[in-house]
Each structure stands twice: as structure tokens, then as C-alpha cells.
């Protein structure tokens, strides 16, 4: 299964963290830090797999992709195929790109919820449930439509800024 999905900026700031195995919250920061140290030490154009037994337990590996200012990291165990995970990162990034129209780090910083919605359409409980970026995008749009519907009927925004930005 997939044990964790991380998006970490090249400034070592986490942009998205999702653990599918329980990790004590107080350990999260250490995990991010050690993964970042591992990745930032690797030069470009080398293989994308790293064994992370020392960080996530025996038999775990991570696959990462370095795109612009972000590292996309998937941590997985022996039940996943390395190259398939690499493809999955590609799917995730493609989906983000489609959802945000040329995704950049700021989109990811300011769309905490949407990012999770996209990820949840793709992976549930560490299992891949959808691998087509079109399908994921369609589902995400459907959810947004449903929620908008729900808000227009019954939701009065409380936040001033939200009211103004809408």
C-alpha cells in the first residue's frame, strides 16, 4: 500500500502531507525533515527511488519527482510497483495541472482543501482507486458542483473576505 503522500517545497516547507499509516503527529515534522534532507542531497537526473527503511520502517521505498520548486513524494511498501508509483505521481501532477490550469506552488499553498479532494479521489486508505486524470478531474468538478449547490441553498458565508472574493 501507499504509506504516505508528501509535497515538499525546495525550501523544506511541507505543502501537502497525508499519511495512510498512523504516524504520531509529533513525528510528522521529523519525517518531513528527513525526507527533505534525503531528496535535497540527490543530484538531478538520477533515479527516482530511494530506500527509506530508516525513516518509514522496513521494506519501504519512496519515489519522488522534482518539478519546479516542489518535490512530489510517494512512500510505499512491497505491495506496490516502483514504476507504477512513478506513473501515479505523473497522474497526480497532471490532474493538478488540469484542475488549476498550469499549476504552480501558490495554487498548492492556497488550496488546501481542493488538494486533498483531488488526492482522495485518487487514493483511499493507501489503495489506488483511480488512475485516470480525466476521471479524477470529473469527480472533483462534480463534488464542487454539489457543494456549491449546497451552499447556494443554505450556506451564508460568515467570513468577510470570502464574501468579497465570491
Amino acid at each position, binding site marked *: *500500500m501507499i504509506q504516505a503522500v508528501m509535497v515538499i517545497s525546495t525550501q523544506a516547507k*511541507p505543502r501537502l502531507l497525508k499519511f495512510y499509516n498512523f504516524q504520531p*503527529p509529533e513525528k510528522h515534522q521529523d519525517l518531513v525533515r528527513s525526507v527533505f534532507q534525503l531528496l535535497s542531497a540527490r543530484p538531478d537526473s538520477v533515479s527516482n527511488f530511494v530506500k527509506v527503511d530508516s525513516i518509514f520502517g522496513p521494506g519501504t521505498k519512496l519515489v519522488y519527482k522534482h518539478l519546479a520548486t516542489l518535490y512530489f513524494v510517494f512512500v510505499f511498501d512491497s*505491495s506496490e510497483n516502483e514504476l507504477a508509483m512513478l506513473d501515479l505521481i505523473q497522474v497526480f501532477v497532471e490532474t493538478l495541472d488540469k484542475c488549476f490550469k498550469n499549476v504552480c506552488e501558490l495554487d498548492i499553498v492556497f488550496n*488546501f*482543501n481542493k488538494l486533498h*479532494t483531488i488526492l482522495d479521489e485518487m487514493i483511499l486508505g493507501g489503495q489506488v482507486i483511480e488512475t485516470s486524470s480525466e476521471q479524477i478531474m470529473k469527480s472533483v468538478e462534480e463534488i464542487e458542483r454539489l457543494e456549491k449547490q*449546497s451552499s447556494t441553498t443554505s450556506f451564508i458565508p460568515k467570513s468577510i473576505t470570502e464574501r468579497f472574493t465570491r
Partner: protein
Amino acid sequence: MASTPPAPAVAPSLVDTLFQRSLNDLVKSLRADPSAAGEAAAVARALSEIHREIRAPDAATKSVALQKLAYLSSLHFAPVGSHPLAFAAIELLASPHLPHKHLAYLAASLSLHPASLSLLPLATHQLHKDLSPSAGAAHQQHVSALAFQLLASPAATAAPDLPVHLAHDLVQHLARGSPRAIAAAARVIAASPSAAVPVLFKPLAACLASPDPRASTAAAAAFCDLSAPPADATPFLPLAPDLYNLLTTSRSNWALIKVLKVFARLAPLEPRLAARIVDPVCQLLTRSSAMSLTFECIRTVLTALPAHDAAVRLAIGKAKEFIAAADDPNLRYLGLLALGMLGPAYASTVNDCRDAIAKSLGDADTNIRQEALHLIMGMVNENNVVDIAGMLISHVAKSDPEFANDILGAVLAACGHNVYEMVVDFDWYVSLLADMARTLHCAQGDEIGRQLVDVGLRVQDARPELVRSARTLLIDPALLGNHFLFPVLSAAAWISGEYVDLTKDPVELVEALLQPRTSLLPISVRAVYIHAVFKVITWCFSVYVGRLGDSGMAMDVMFDRLAPDQTVSLDSNVALGSGEEQDIGASTVRKDPFSHESILYMIDLIQTTVGPLINCNEVEVQERAHNLIGFVHLVREIQELNKRKVADGDEPSRLKELVKTMRTVFCQELGPVSVNAQMKVAPPDGLILNENLVELAGMVSEDDTTPSTSIFFYPCSRHSVDTRDEPAVSIGSSSLSEHRKRHGLFYLQTGKTEDEPNDYPQANDSLPSSSNNSVINDDKSKTAELVFAGKKSTATKSRPKVVKLDTEDFLSSVMPSANVPKEDPLSGALRDVLLGSDAKALSSQRASDINLEGMLNKTSSNESSSHLIENLGSYPASRSSRTTSKQQNDDKEKGTNPRESDGKEPRKHRSSGRSGHRQGKHKHREKSSTQPDTIPQASVIQDFLL
């Protein structure tokens, strides 16, 4: 817990909440000051704000607060007390507004903590409601998706009763083949098998056969996850037909990968399965264009179908294609990884692509380098170890420090494995060790130093080369600045001191050991250096004095600093009386290190450099410096007398005696000691190890603290091959046996006769090295193979003898030594006879008699114990008639005084074909057959107590 009605505008908290910051505001404020302190302040402010807002009665305020809290706890690691978050989240789960509900589920699945599990039952009802099907299709689908999300989140799967309550709700979703439900069911089963399996396993298995490819893919993934290694894959064997169907019909690479993974785990459990799947797997392997699937096929074949040769060759071919992929480091890495999965049966195949693998050692990618190193170390055997180690060491210089040390560590581990079983040419290995120490980034000093000393102790033939290598290390002042090399230098200094008689130029050695930069060394190493100087100078004196004695009254001539002539150097050789005569002879002709002036020069050097160290505040150094300076003073005193020509004939002999005494101190051969020597000693009956020994304190202080000076009278065993076996062997050991006699009660009894702790194998055999070949029996096959090794002249050289201790390879079999039947019948019988004065020994001896009968093909069942021993003695002795005759002489000598010689008897390991073993048995045969039974037994018990 009821949701707030959708009219929050009238709430009194409007003024407060009017200015509530949204998540975006929060993110902006956090980004305003990117410094750590600024961020921490912003987080703290936001948290206090959230704590106020989250108690707000209206759902909207609460949900925004919850969202901010989830964000902070997830990405800013805010220490969120779990309860406020968990409670608000669970409260909002029930909200009829989809966005609120969504937020609540997200917050709950992100941040629920096992500590907040007590709250989770509160959510059970809501989850149940959200999972139940209702009218609004799209809306309901979304809601149940959220519920699955929470159900599969790590915290919820840790809640014991949640699966029990909700398993039935999952069943209907499984029946519809929802991938989410399948994934959630897998998590639920993994979290609580006992409760969930009866309910969920069958519906889940039914999904495998579902016509919907999404459902079957998800089900395959679920079973792949559930059968992952810590779990037992056996319960999944009944799924094989469905999985096989999927394997042959599915078009989805995801599904195929998962099915292959499950089959890789099932195939070892069911032999027929491998034959069934090998064809479809090979088809996929040749047909598939997806690299991920190809790699999975390779992995399946190499790990689960090793018996199918054609498939394995196909997979290896594909793996080699991966390795050859110049533009994709991922494929190269995975190709190497795949080859690493091959068993030893295909080692030759791996060998074929050695060049490609060796090239990968220089790859920019650490992963690829590591895998390549791992593969190469897997190929090493005694035929190619020289090539491979040479190639690897040449890579060390080109590698970054970390990988360089990985290489060095791997080479050291491989060559040192099982007492250097792969090393044939120890001269080569010793110089390799020295080369390794000199590589640029070497940080493996500890292991190199350890192996240098260890080789010295175990392999007599390697000592000349060791001393040469140690010299090159010691005379290089540059090495003294590298703190990683201190252990190596320490080992080199020890070797030069211990085997000083093999050195060519002791003067140079003393200079090297006392060079100014040695002040950079740590205390422990300096102490070793000074002690090595002590040994060197003692040896030089002994040679010098030996010459004085030889030239008799021509001593005056010696003092008149005459250049050494041919006869003198000849004399020195006689005095040396040990190996490397030619080398030393050559160097003595060139420059005599034992001339009066060389000795004087060395003494002066020692006094000027070591002299100040007697004030050193480190005891180790101070003590050794004191020893050395004290010795030098003693010698000098006598020499002063000589110089003033008041030699009354007494002084030289005093000098001679002194030097000889000192020399004998260092002559005792050192050998390796087994780590488990102590463990093998069985406590005697009736000894309670935990007993309080306080009452013995008086006795200890009375007797044991008197220092034993007798140690100074060890004979020079290394120099006199013949005297070593002579009866008057050592006063040291006889004083030990005296002590043993006095305090016999407190000595432990041996488990086996070969286990006496002070009786480890002598590192050098008393036989000359030329006879090694005749002695080696078990190693013979090994050396025979090595003749094939090929071009190198070194390979035709037979492997020198390596001292190996019992425990080093019979460890596991010997450990339960309390079990008599498990013991080697031979040694057991021996022990019984040697210790055997009581009835118990006799009975077990009968048993071992029978064992031996078959083994030796002799009928001895009703013969006496002395005959039994006779058999034992003659059995190994038949190996070499030459040594037997020699032994018989020895035996006769020993027979006169068996007790004293016992303690010194060298014992060798069986598998390395040792004469010592044989000698020991011989001796006992002599004892028991030539003397009345009772007397030797009594004395034997004494000696084998230790």
C-alpha cells in the same frame, strides 16, 4: 450535537465572527513573515483565535475554525490538543451542508489520533447513516465516499469496534463493486481481521470476478495488500482460480501488477501454481510494452519461479535490457535490483554482465552504485577475489567519500568473512589492506587495523609481508595526521613490535616509531608505539648480545666500531635463527643495525624522545615510557662499564642475561582467542555461580595479589622449535597449575578437552611451513580448486594455513554442550576418558565407544579405555608418517612429565587439519597406555580443570 439551524445571522456572536479570518487569510498571514519566529507567532495567534471560534454555536464559524486548525496541524505541525479538534469535527460530521460535512470528514481523517478514539464511537451512528443508500444518487455517493475516507483513515482503523459496527454497511457497497468500498474493506480487514473477515471476505472475493474492471482491479489490489509479507498468504490460495482468470484476461496493467504480486507470494506455497502461471507470465513479459508490468514480471519470475529455466533466462534478458538503458537511471537501477534477486544458481549469468555492472559503480546515482556494489560482492569467490577487490579499490579513488567507504567496508567484510576463507594469497591481502588504509577517504581504520592484527595472529606465512606493509605505513609521516588511520597505525606498530625479528631495518623502524609527528596520535596508540619500540630495542639487544657471546673475547673489537664483515653478519643470522634470513643478511651487509653505534644511536634516540614522556599525565603512556627508559638505563649502565673496559667478564654475562630475560618476555607466541571461549566452559556439578563469595575475600587478598615474576622465564618458543615441546615447558603455566592446585575448587571444569582458555591454538605451528601441505587435509580440496585459478602466479601458490578456532564455525553445534548426545562423539569420548574417574564417565564412554566403532571401522566395543584411545590416536596419525615419527619422539619426552606439558599443548581445529590436535591425542595415548591407569588420571583431572 444537533446541527445549527441555517440562520446564523441572528446569533449574538455575529460581531465576534464578523471578522473571522478565512483559511486564505491565515495562509497569507503565515506567509507575511517567513522567518521561523514570525511563523511561530502567527501560528500561536491563529491557534488562540481558533480555540475561541471553534466553540462558536454556529456551524459556519466552527467549520472555518476547524479548517484552519486542520491546516495548521497538518502543515505547520501545530501541537493541537486532540480533543477540541476531534470533537468539533465529529460534531460537524452531522451537518447537512455538504461543504461542512466535507471539511469535518477531512479534519477527522487527517487529524484523528488514537488518543481521541474514545470520541469515535460518537461518529459511528453518523457513519452508519452516511453509508446507507438513499435517494439522491450523486449527493449520496459523495457522502458515502467521505465516509469511506474516514473509515479507511489510519486512526479509525485503530478503533477496535468501528469495523464491527460498520462491516455490514460495507457489504452492500461491495456488492455494487465500488472501488472505494473495496479499498476501505481492505483496511478494515487489515485492522480487525477477526471481526471483519467473516463479514467482508466473501463479498470482497466476489469482486475479483466482477465484470467491472475497476472493481476487479481494486479487489486485486486489496488482496495484494492483505497478503503482504508480515501476513500469511496461505488463506488466499483458494482465490488462485479467480486471480488466474484475471491474469489471463485483464487488460489493466494495475490489475496485472497486483495479481502478479499475489502470485509471487502464493507460488512458493503451492508447487503446482508455478507451473500454471509461468506461461501467462512469460507471455506478458514478451508482450507488454509497459515497463512497470515488465519489471513486475521479471520480479515474479526471479523471486517465485526460479525453477523454470526458460522463464528465468527470459527475465534475465529483460533485466539486462533495463541495465543497458542509457537514458533512464530508473531502469538501470531496477535492472540491477532484479539481478540482485537471482539466487546463487545463476551467479555465472550475472558474471556475464560484470562489465556493465562495474560500469555502474561509477554512476552518478547512489542507488545504482549501491546496487552494483551489492551485485559485485555477490559474485566474489576465491578465484576472482583478487580481480574484483583490485577493481573495486581502483574505484575507491574515483568515488565520493561515502561510497568509497561503502566499497572498503564491503571488501573488508567479504574478504574477512569466515576467517578469510576467500583469501588464498595472504601477501596480496595484506598489501591490499595497506592500500585500503592509504586510500583518500578511508574511514574504515578500525576494521583494517583489526584484520591486520588478526591476520598476523592467524597466518604465520603472511607475517613477513605484514611487517613490510606495516613499515611502509609507519614511515609515512603524512598518515599520522589522519585520525581515521590511528587504529591502522596502532596495528602496524603492534605488528612491527611483535614480529620484529622479520624486520629488515630496526633502526629505521625505531626512527619511524619515534618520529616527531607521533605526538599527534591519541594516547592509546602512543602507548602501543612506545611498547613496540620496547620490543624492537629488546630484540636488537638480544641480537647484539648474542653476537658478543659468539665472538667471545673479541668483544673489544666489537666496541671499536668496526665495520661488520662477512662472518659477523653470518653470526647475526645464526643468532636470529628465524625466517627471512636472506633479507636480513642482505640488510646487515648494507648497514648493520646491530653494530654498537646503531644500538647506541637507538638508545640515544629513545632517551631524547621517550624521556620527556615519563612526565606525561596519561598513565598508559607514562607507564610504558617508564618501562622503556628504565630498561635503557639498565642496559646503558652495563655498557658504560664495558666502555670503560672494566669488563671483568661478569658484566657481559649480566647484560646477556638481562637482555635474554627481556627478550623471552616478548617471545611467547600470541594466538587468536575465541569470543566464545568462556561460554564453552561448563560449570562443574555443585557449583552455584550466583553464590555469594564474600567469605573468600580474605583468601583472595592473601594469595592472588602476589605478583608472579615467573613469567619472565618463559623460554623463547619461537626461536626454538624443538624446545617448545620439551617437558620443562613453562614455569608460567606450572605456576598457574600450582595455583590451580591450591584453588582447584574455583577453577571451572572444561566442557571439552580442547577448550582450555589458555590453550588456544598456537598461531604458528611448530612444524616448518614447508610441511603445511602435507598437514592440511580438509583444506586440500580447496587448494586443489585454486590451482585452476588461472594466470596469476599467486594462484598456484597453496593457501597458507589459517588458524581457526572451534567456535568460529562449529558455534551453533557446540553451543548446547550440556547435551551429551549432541556432542561430537570423538571429543566426548576423549573428555570422558581424560576426566573419567567416575562411573558416569564410564557409562557414557561406552556409548561413545559404539559411536566410534562405526566411525573408525574397528571393533572396540569390549576393549579397554586405553585401547580406545589408541584407536583415536592412530586414526589421525595415519595421515602423515613423517610427522608421526617426529611425534613419537616428542611423545616419549612428554610422557615423562605429562602434567606440565598439558597446559602448553597446542590445539588446532579439526577442519584446518592441525597437527596439534593429533599430538594431543598421541600424548594421551602414551600416557594411558604406558603408565598405570590411576596415576595419569589423577594428574589429568588437575590439568583439565581450567
